[in-house]
Structures are given as C-alpha cells and as structure tokens.
C-alpha cells in the first residue's frame, strides 16, 4: 500500500469514527477480549513495550509537569500583582524607547515631587501617590555589616503597596518634611543586623549617617524572580535625596487610582500632563513610563499565550516522536506475527477484526504511556514545587488533554500498521517463515 493510496482510500476516516463510536455489543469481537489480547501481546515483550511507551511517557510527563509548574508560578505572580494593589499606577523616570536602549532610573532627571503633586491636583482619577528613589548602601549595626537597597519614599507608599509593619511604626509625614534620619527595615535586614535583638528604637548606620529604626515590615518573601523582597530599608525620600544620593529628582512615583478602570483611564491624562510639564515636543518620545495593573495583566496574558504555544509545540513534537516509536514497533510486530494473522484469517477473522486487534494494541500502548506519563508528571511537579516552595497546582485540563492526545496518537500512528496487517493475504501470511 502506497502513501498515496492510503490517502486516496478514505475509508480509514470512517473506520476511526467507527472505532470510537462502535457499539461493542454489536461488534463481532467484543472489546474486552480484544483489549485482553492486546495486553497479553504487549506483556510478551515487556521491555520492548516499555521502551516504546517511553516516548509518550516523557512527552506527557513533561507537559503535565511544565503546565503544573507554570500554573504555580502564575499563581505567585498574580499574588504579587495583587499585593501591589490592583489599582496601582507606576510612573517611572526614563524611556524604554530611547534609541532602543532603555535608560535606567538615574539617566533621566526630570521626574520630580512637583510632578507628583501636579498629578494629584489635576487628575482626580488618582487617589494617592508616593515618590520614590533608591540607592544601594552599606549598612552597619554593632559589628554587623550588610549591603542593601535604601528606598526613599513617603508614608503612604506602604498603603499603596498594602505593606504594613509587623512591629513599631512607619515614619511620619513630619519626619519626611524634616528629612529626619529614621527608617523602616525589612525582616531580612532585621535578622542580619540585629539577630535576636529588638531593632525598634535602635540606631544603625546607613552610609555614614546614623538612623533610628522605627519599624519592621511584614515579610513578603521572594518575588517571582527569586529576589528577596525583605532585604530592604525605607527612609523619608527627602532624607535619601539630600543626605544620601544628593539629587533632587525621583526615580518613580507609586500611585493608586480610585478604581481599576480609573488606573487605565488615568494613563492618557498623566501622559499629557507630564509631557507638558517636561516640555516634550510632539514627535519626541516620553521621558517616563507608565505601567498599570492592566498593562501587567496584558503582559502576563501575552507571556502565558506564548508559554502555551511553546508547551503545545513541545507536547506535539514529543507525542509525534512517541507516535513514530509506536508505529515502528507495531510494524515490527505485524511482521513478526504474520503467521498468527494468517491463522486468525484462516479461521474467520475479517480484515476489520485484524485491524481492530492491532489498533487496540497501539492505543493500549499509547494510553498506558499517557497514564504513566501523567503519574510521573504529577510526581515531578510536586517535587519541583516542593523544592521552590510553590503551591502545586495540578491542571485538570492538562491531564485531560494528555489522555486525549495519547489516545489520538495511538489511533493515528497505529492505524497504518493495523491496516497493513488487515491487508495481508491469508495464504501468504500462513506460508510466512
């Protein structure tokens, strides 16, 4: 049978349908019997069957594991985004379009506290806003020494980011006005510098200046990229601007809108306001970037669909490879069992009976591979999730897809060998040595 003939003779399409829809009661050779026969035939060559299944096992296992881990990661990202506040609007200094090279925070000096106040005054969609700038500094307490990031901001920053203190308190607006040497520290800094000592009220050094510790923030753990979010110190932005960095501008403004819709609606007015204030001529790029919750969600959706396509690609490649393995082994099996096929035909097996026997065998092989793959995939994802301390999110859809696809692979790749077996001439098959 040539490939062309195989395509021209479309009866195999209806055969597939019949395979799925057939009423087994009516079927000449009942299904359980065929299935038992298939299991027995596969059990005769255990090693070979196992190796043949391996392709499917790996394919399905990988997909399940990756999907589960991906979902765990996604869950963490979502939590992180939620923690930032769903109405959040971030305005960062710098442009991601300047000559195709993104300029860092420090590169642009135009974003100021006046900008922030103008936004608050002129754009009612924005409820509150906090200025921010960062600087990496050496911090010292007693004989403990540590390098960490100092963020200068205002007290409402902690409201916008929904990040309360676990002990002590946040510095006040007056302390911001006075550019006082006070700070709030993350739990990592507290642990490293103070150990078991209570840091509240103690004086530590940031750079060369003494700072009083007012509060310790609640722990946020690692973020998606594995960065420790508790390795931070917050101080009044005025203090950081004047005494540490020696600058007058900001690196970003953390704002929050009155609602989620408002956060998106606020982007255009903020853009035109800032362009006007920064005197940017038409046709020139912004010197700031605005990110809203919706942008992040969009980005995430994009990433996710790319991920899905990638996974789909991996899955189909490995399943096709697995399927070719099954086809190969089934062709070998048909050749080896030519005589058996001849005997079966001589005692009354029709073409359909023979075809069904080998098709069921191929599907059994692929479905068993799929089932083992699911088990391995689940175990693997649990292990990895455990290692990364992520929640394990088993995707029911991925499991279902694995079952359907592995069955389909068996049918698609098992059909040709089964068809070949059914086309054998009984006399020649009986004479085969």
């Amino acid at each position, binding site marked *: 049978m040539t490939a062309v003939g195989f395509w021209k003779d479309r009866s195999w399409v209806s055969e597939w349908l019949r395979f799925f829809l057939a009423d087994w009661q009516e079927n000449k050779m009942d299904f359980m019997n065929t299935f038992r026969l298939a299991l027995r035939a596969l059990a005769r060559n255990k090693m070979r069957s196992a190796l043949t299944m391996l392709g499917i096992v790996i394919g399905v296992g990988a997909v399940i594991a990756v999907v589960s881990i991906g979902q765990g990661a996604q869950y963490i990202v979502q939590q992180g985004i939620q923690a930032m506040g769903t109405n959040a609007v971030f305005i960062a200094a710098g442009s991601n379009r300047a000559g195709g090279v993104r300029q860092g925070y420090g590169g642009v000096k135009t974003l100021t506290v006046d900008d922030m106040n103008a936004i608050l005054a002129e754009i009612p969609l924005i409820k509150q806003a906090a200025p921010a700038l960062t600087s990496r500094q050496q911090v010292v307490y007693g004989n403990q020494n540590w390098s960490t990031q100092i963020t200068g901001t205002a007290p409402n920053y902690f409201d916008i980011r929904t990040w309360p203190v676990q002990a002590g308190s946040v510095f006040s607006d007056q302390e911001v006005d006075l550019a006082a040497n006070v700070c709030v520290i993350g739990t990592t800094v507290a642990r490293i510098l103070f150990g078991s000592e209570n840091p509240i009220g103690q004086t530590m050094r940031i750079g060369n200046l003494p700072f009083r510790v007012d509060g310790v923030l609640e722990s946020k753990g690692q973020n998606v990229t594995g960065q420790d979010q508790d390795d931070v110190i917050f101080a009044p932005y005025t203090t950081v601007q004047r005494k540490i960095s020696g600058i007058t501008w900001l690196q970003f403004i953390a704002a929050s809108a009155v609602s989620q819709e408002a956060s998106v609606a606020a982007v255009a007015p903020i853009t035109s306001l800032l362009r006007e204030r920064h005197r940017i001529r038409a046709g020139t790029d912004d010197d700031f970037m605005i990110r809203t919750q919706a942008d992040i969600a969009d980005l995430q959706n994009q990433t996710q669909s790319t991920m899905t396509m990638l996974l789909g690609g991996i899955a189909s490649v490995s399943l096709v490879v697995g399927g070719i393995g099954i086809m190969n082994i089934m062709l070998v099996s048909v050749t080896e069992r030519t005589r058996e096929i001849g005997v*079966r035909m*001589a005692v*009354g097996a*029709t*073409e359909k009976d023979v075809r069904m026997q080998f098709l069921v065998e191929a599907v059994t092989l692929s479905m068993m591979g799929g089932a083992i793959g699911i088990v391995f995939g689940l175990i693997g994802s649990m292990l990895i999730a455990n290692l990364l301390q992520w929640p394990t999110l088993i995707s029911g859809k991925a499991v279902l897809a694995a079952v359907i696809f592995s069955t389909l692979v068996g049918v698609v790749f098992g059909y040709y060998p089964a068809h070949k077996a059914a086309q054998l001439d009984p006399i020649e098959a009986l004479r085969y040595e």
Partner: protein
Amino acid sequence: MAEQILPAVDPDKAPGKSEPMIRLENVYKTYDLGEIQVQALRGVSLEVRAGEFVAVMGPSGSGKSTVMNILGCLDRPTKGRYFLDGVDVSGMSKDELARIRNKKLGFVFQQFNLLSRTSALENVELPTVYAGIKPEERTRRAMESLTRVGLADRAGHHPSQLSGGQQQRVAIARGLVNQPAILLADEPTGNLDSRTSIEIMEILQTLNDEQGLTIVLVTHEADIAQFTKRNLEFRDGKLKRDKLVEERLIAREVLKTLPTAEEQAAEDAQEDASQEKAATENARQAAPKA
C-alpha cells in the same frame, strides 16, 4: 492416458438427487509473476457430496495445495466457478469469504499453525471468538471439541508442551469447534511419524463415520490415502484420476496390530537389557582368560 476418469459419485448416496457439498466447475488458477505466468490449475471440475472422505493426491507441484486453498475459501479461482453447499462463492468479497471460513469450513495444516504461548483451549476457541459467541459458550464448545480428539486433559497446555500428534489433534479440534460442513486438511500427517499419522486418521475416520463430516485431505502417501473413501489424483494442474477406494483400511484395526508407544518403549528397553546382559556375559567369560 490409460486411466478413465470415473464418475465421482458415492454409490451409497442417491446420485443427482441432492446438491453436492462441493462443486468446482472448470476452475483455473494462474499466478501472474510478471514475466511468467504459472498455471497452477487448468480446468478442474469435481464434485464432493456430503459425508464423503476424499484424499487428494499427486506429485509435488501438481496443484493440490492450490485446489485446497480454493476449496477452503482462502483463495479465489482465476476462472471458473466454485459452489459450496449450493452457493457460488467464487465471486464473494473477502469479508464474506472470512465468514464462510468461520462458519462452514475447518482447516488443518501440515505445520499445525497453532498460536504459540497460547493454551490448547484458547487455540481451539479461536474460531468461536470470530463467530461472536459468548465467552462461557466458547469455553464449553472448545472443551467439547478437545474431548472429541481425546485431549480434554491437555486443555491448559501450550503447543510447545505438546507432541506433534497432540498439536495436530488440537488443530483438528479447532477445525471442528464451529461445527463446519467440511473439514479440509493439507497434508495433516506430513510432519508426523507413521503411528501418529494413523492415530490422526483414526480421529478423522471416526468423525466421518459417526458424524457424517465431509473431509477432504491432501496426502502424497498412498497408505494414508487408503484410509479414505475416494482418491483424486492431480497432475500438472489437472484432475487425472478419480477412483473409489477398494479395501479401505480401518485405522482402529491397523493400530491394534501396531505396538503402542509404551509397548514400543518397553520392547526397546527389553532389547537393551538383553544386549547388556549378553555384554556382561561376554565380559565374564572373557575375564578368567585374562
């Protein structure tokens, strides 16, 4: 040709009254090998009535297997017609032929052709599976069939655990399990020793005598053909002779005259023992001289 083709009619049956079980009408079989064409059968006409026991004979390459394959619906004639039980099967589809093989025909091969690593019982069951019979009924029928060939106690044995004769009996049981109209056997005794061959013939004779089963077998051994009722001789793809067997041998009687396997073994053992005895005797006589 000196020999006249005799009318193929069993004198016990009323000739011409009933439709014959098998009727071949001017059957040709040509194998097209591209450059050359092999004419395996060239115009064979014959009739076999219900209850007959026929041996097909002839030299190698004379077309015996070819005609058996056509009779067994494993192959179709290139030209001519084949009526099986009054139905023209020469134009039937593959599926229809499979159904006929399943329901009406039993086939026994020279190489037994049992499924390996499958019990005797399951081998015998095979045709009933394709007949769509329920599992319990299958087992019952297969057991009954095995009992008929005297192998009920070997039901669970695999072919590799059975002797050649026993394997062929399993194959006969398989051929009988769907209660076919005809049993076809292509050199069923070809791989067996003479005693075992006669045991197989005993089973076939019993089936023919007691159940009236129509049997057609191929053999090239004249003494095996003597157990049947009618001999057909093929030569160069043609039926050359058709004669009824006179002085038919009865396998049961012949077996009585032959030593059984155990007796044979005992006899051999006795022979060995006496030879040994003689040897020791010789040795003892030789010893004092030394």
